[in-house]
Each structure stands twice: as C-alpha cells, then as structure tokens.
C-alpha cells in the first residue's frame, strides 16, 4: 500500500526485506511448515509400509478423523475469540443419544437429523448464554456442562445401547459417494471447511472474530456485539456437534453413553496444531485443515506400523507442544536476525 502520501515513522525503521529474508519469512510461516510436515509424514510412511500409499486406504482412513475434523472448524471460531469449549464431546454424546433413542421409537432419517441438530444447537446455545450471562471463563462453564451433557445419556441410558436404526441410516457415516472411493463424510467435511474458510477470511463476521480475539473491549467500542458473537460461536459449535453425533451414530450404528470420550482434547489439539492461537486472534482455516490431515495420517500410518495407541498418544501430545514451541522459537530466531542486522547497520 504505497500510493497516497505516506509519512515515514519516526524512530528509524528497518529497510526493505531482501529476497532471502522474504524466503525465510515464507518458510517459517506456520501453514507452510504444516505442509512440509504432511509431506514428510506421507513420504515416510509410504516408504515404511506398502499399504500407506494406496488410494483406497488413504480415502478410507479419513473415516477415522472426519467427524473430529468437522468439529475442529467451529472450534476455530471459539478459540479465535479467546474462549474454549471442553463440552463438545459431551454434546456429541447427547445428540447421539437422542438420535439413538428416537430411532428406536421408529423416527425417520430426516427427522433424526433435525432432532440431532436441534439438540446440539440448544446445548451450544446454553453454553453460550451461561458463559456470557455468568461472565465466567468458558473453560469453567464448559467444565460443568461437560458433566451435565454427558450425565443425561449416562443417567437415562445406563447400560443400554441403542442399536435399532432405519434402513439406509448407515450411509452418512460409512458409505462412499456411489461409484467412487471417496467417503461421503470426507466430501461433507471439505464442503463445510470451504464454507468456514470463506466466512473466516472473506466476510465481515470473520474480520470481527479476529478483532474480538485480539481485543474484545476495542471490538465492543467499535460497535461489535461481542456477547452475541460469542453466543453464536458456541451455538454454531453445538450445531456441528449435533451433526457429529448424527454421523457418529451412523458410522457405528450403536449409541452408548460413553461415545466420543476424549474428543475434546483431540479436537483442541487439531485447532492449536493448525496454528490458531489459544489466546485468540490468530489462525487460519487452512492451517487447521492441514493440522487435521497431519494428525489423521500420522495416526493412520502409525497404526499400519502397529504402533500401540499409547505411542500414538505420546506422539500427538508431543506434537501439540512442539507445534506451539516451534513458532515461538522461529519468532525468536527472526527477531534475533533483525536485531543482528540492525546492529550491523
């Protein structure tokens, strides 16, 4: 933006960046790093096992993480605003429970979907209202609702499992697009991800999310309805939890009160790994998509090598920490470079 009259700041600014510096700048971009990591994972596992680089397997493996990856998308909005939701797995269980129970009563597929979405949306809305109403940190409130939402299916279902579903219900979570090897869930995920990317990066809503994440107070003074947007974020997440519950029920065709346990942590890991700052205000959808693919294929590859789940948890846990540590070290490196250059001048 050099047109128009531009006054140069006082305090002696550092000169234009050289090409080399710009290259370093690019390579140290988080999305680029994720891309490189993803390539490393793919190349590594393709060399380690003949089963990895296989079109069907690569597609089929997405069943394992599509639902979580979908939920990571609205979670971007929540974390972007500096909030967090650790009740999402419970909402998935709650809406899954409603789907299962209703299906046993003979409810048809469209109504099941609506019901599931409705329950999820309401649960998310309650989260949002409680957080903004009580003016309490989201982590505290969703810690409580986590137990409450999980408590309902646990209390009602007890030992029971819902296993009766209408004909064709399994399509959404298990089947491929007819005539291809592309899972329906994957297509759904990519579609939703595209919408989220558009909303975050191209709309006023997205811009406002960034503003809130960086300074909620300034956002408020600038005429942004911060409370309402936070409520919308939680409600939106609830809506997608409802979708997640529906897809999960469709995939495993058996709903118990303990479905989706541990998803909260996994999904937050995806979002943070994708480069969304946990304190809000920074991140991209493409980063989270790459993060989801990275974790998904890393786990798939390790599974092929018959790594135990234990090793996988350790690897994913370490990845999360490294993901946050690395950009920090890079920043430090960049700052030091700048300093050295300045001192030389």
């Amino acid at each position, binding site marked *: 933006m050099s047109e128009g009259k531009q006054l140069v700041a006082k305090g002696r600014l550092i000169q234009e960046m050289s090409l080399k510096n710009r290259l370093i700048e690019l390579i140290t971009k988080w999305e680029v790093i994720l891309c490189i990591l993803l390539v490393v994972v793919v190349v590594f596992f393709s060399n380690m096992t003949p089963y990895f680089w296989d079109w069907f397997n690569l597609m089929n493996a997405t069943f394992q993480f599509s639902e979580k990856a979908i939920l990571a998308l609205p979670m971007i909005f929540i974390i972007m605003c500096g909030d*967090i939701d650790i009740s999402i797995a419970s909402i998935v269980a709650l809406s899954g429970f409603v789907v299962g129970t209703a299906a046993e009563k003979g409810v048809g597929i469209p109504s099941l979907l609506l019901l599931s979405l409705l329950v999820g949306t309401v649960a998310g809305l309650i989260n949002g209202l*409680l957080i903004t109403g*009580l*003016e*309490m*940190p989201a*982590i*505290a*409130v969703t*810690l*409580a*609702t*986590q*137990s*409450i*939402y*999980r*408590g*309902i299916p*646990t*209390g*009602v*279902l*007890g030992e029971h499992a819902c296993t009766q579903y209408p004909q064709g219900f399994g399509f959404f979570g298990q089947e491929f697009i007819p005539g291809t090897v592309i899972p329906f869930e994957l297509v759904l995920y990519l579609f939703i991800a595209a919408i989220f990317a558009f909303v975050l990066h191209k709309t006023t809503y997205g811009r406002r999310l960034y503003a809130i994440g960086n300074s*909620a*107070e300034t956002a*408020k*003074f600038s005429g942004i309805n911060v409370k309402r947007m936070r409520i919308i974020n939680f409600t939106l997440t609830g809506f997608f939890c409802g979708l997640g519950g529906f897809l999960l029920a469709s995939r495993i065709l058996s709903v118990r*009160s303990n479905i989706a346990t541990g998803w909260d*942590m996994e999904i*937050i*890991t995806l979002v*943070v790994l994708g480069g969304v700052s*946990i*304190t809000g205000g920074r991140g991209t959808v493409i980063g989270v998509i790459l993060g989801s693919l990275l974790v998904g294929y890393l786990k798939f590859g390790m599974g092929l090598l018959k790594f*135990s789940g*234990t*090793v996988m*948890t*350790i690897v*994913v*846990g*370490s*990845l*999360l*920490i490294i993901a*946050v*540590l690395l950009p*920090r070290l890079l920043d430090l490196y960049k700052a030091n470079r700048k300093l050295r250059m300045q001192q030389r001048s």
Partner: protein
Amino acid sequence: MPNRSFQSVMKQAFARREATLIVLLVLLLVPITIRSPHFLSVKNISTILNDMAILVIVSIGEFYVILSNGIDLSVGSVIAFAGMACGMLNESHPEIPAPLLLLVGMGIGAILGLVNGVLVAYGKIPPIITTLGTVSIYRGMTFLLSKGTWVTAHEMSKSYIALPRNTFLGISVLLWIAFAVIALFYYFSRYTRTGREVYAIGGNANAAKFVGVSESRIRLVVFLVSGTLSGLAGALWTARYASAVNEMATGFEMQAVAACVLGGVNFAGGAGGIIGVAMGTLFLGVVTNALPVIYLSVFWQTFVQGFIVLIALALNTMSDQRKTRKLLAQRRG
C-alpha cells in the same frame, strides 16, 4: 489478612466463599441425614474424609496453578505415573520402607511438574496447551513403564498397603498427611514471599515484573508444587487402593478443578485461598458420597456433579457482581 481486628476478620470471612460453602453444606446435609441418619455417623464421616484426602492434596496443587492464572490438566496422569512407579518399585524392592516410597512419588511428581513448568515458564507455552500435551504423554509413559501390566495387592508389601490405613490418635495417616499438606501450604501462602508472589503473578503479571517478581520462577514453582503433590497423591493412591493400574486417576484433573471452583478460586487468577479449596473438596466429597445413600442411581452422578459446579460458578458470579459490578464495567467495558 493478618493483624486485623476481630470484627473486620469476621466481616471478611462472611463475605467470603468459605461461609457460603458452610451454609450450602448444612443445607445439603439436612435432607441427607433425614433420609439416612447414619450418614453423619463418625464412621461415615471418616470414610468421606479418607476418600477426599487424596483429592484435597491434588486440589491444592491445582489451586496454585489456577491462582497463577494457569490450569494443570496433567495431574491425573502424574498421579498414574508416580503411582505406577511406586507400585512397581515396591514390587521389585519390597525392602524399601513405605515412607520412602512417598518421597519417591513426590520426587517423580516433581520432575514431571518441572517439565510442565519449564515448558510454561521458559518455552512460554500457555499452561492449558502444555498440560493438554503432557496429559497424554505422561499417561502414555505410564503404559510404557508398566508394559501394560498391573501391580496388585499381593505383589505389594504389607507395610506399604498399611501406610495410609494406619491410624494415629484415631485418625488415619492418610488424613494426617492431608492435614499436614493443608497446614504447610496455608503457611506457604500466608507467610512466605514466594507464596505471596504467586498471588502477584496471577493478579497482574506485568505489574509483578516491575516489582522484581520473576514470572518464570513463579510459574516453575506452581507447576513444581502441583507435580510434587500429584506425585505424593499417586504414591498414596497405589497404597490406598492396593493396586496400580494404567488408567488410574483418569479425569481426576476435572475433580481437582471442580474443587477449586467450588472453593471460590478466581479463574482469572490472583484470588482464592487454601481453606476455600479444602472446603470445596469436602463439599464435593459429601455430594459424591451422598448420592448412593439417597438411592440416586450412580448413572446420574456425572450429571449431579456438573450441576453443582455450575451452581458454584453462578454463586461466584453473583457475589462478585454485587460487590464489583461497577469495577467490572470499568475494567471490561
């Protein structure tokens, strides 16, 4: 604060969280006792206290982390790793005296806590992310350590299993340890510089820097305390339940956080007290123990616990709002 007239102390006390909890506890106990008179028997009370002893130890560690404006999600995994290590050590070297095992547990916990602390203090990774990562890593390490096997009662030495059960002056050693921890950290919070500096960091980390309080040091200390106490809890856990399994204490962090929330600890850091945490734990213990007694299906336990935490949060907000509605408006806009 100390050195204050009796009246102002009382006034402060009643404005405080602890008082609210006492009232709630009484309100809760009345219907329970009517329903099951033996609930208030000495024996049952001692069961509840014994049940809560480990939780209170862990909650105090969690308290310091929350006080410094962080959160430690890894306490359950630290308990598991330390507990498993103590169990296995006891199995292979039964000659090691039991009290020494507690020290071993604390040592292991301290190391794990230190790792968290270093990542937070020097790696500048937010506590929630750090411990979200280490919660899986430590749990995984527990599996790797035990190769998936358990340590069960007959593989453990009699003296180790007996350790928490022995009584002294009619009170179990487990409970004595809990009391000792409460007393020690009460002193720490009130009468040591480091103890006060935790409040400073949690209240306003930037201001703390100006008066020379080292943020990294305090962050390291709180995670060290949390880790050490969780390690101690792990060693006690193995002895108390006479078994060490890989899944032990899964989700325990949620209970510890809940105890802190109930105890009125400010989630934004900088406010709260040890006594409140102890009361919060007790409250949680009474509720958990009361459920079976009032014939509420165990399946509803999760629901009720969540509900109680929510009510505690609402209470926190209401008492805060009344006092500082104006301040909030000023600060948060």
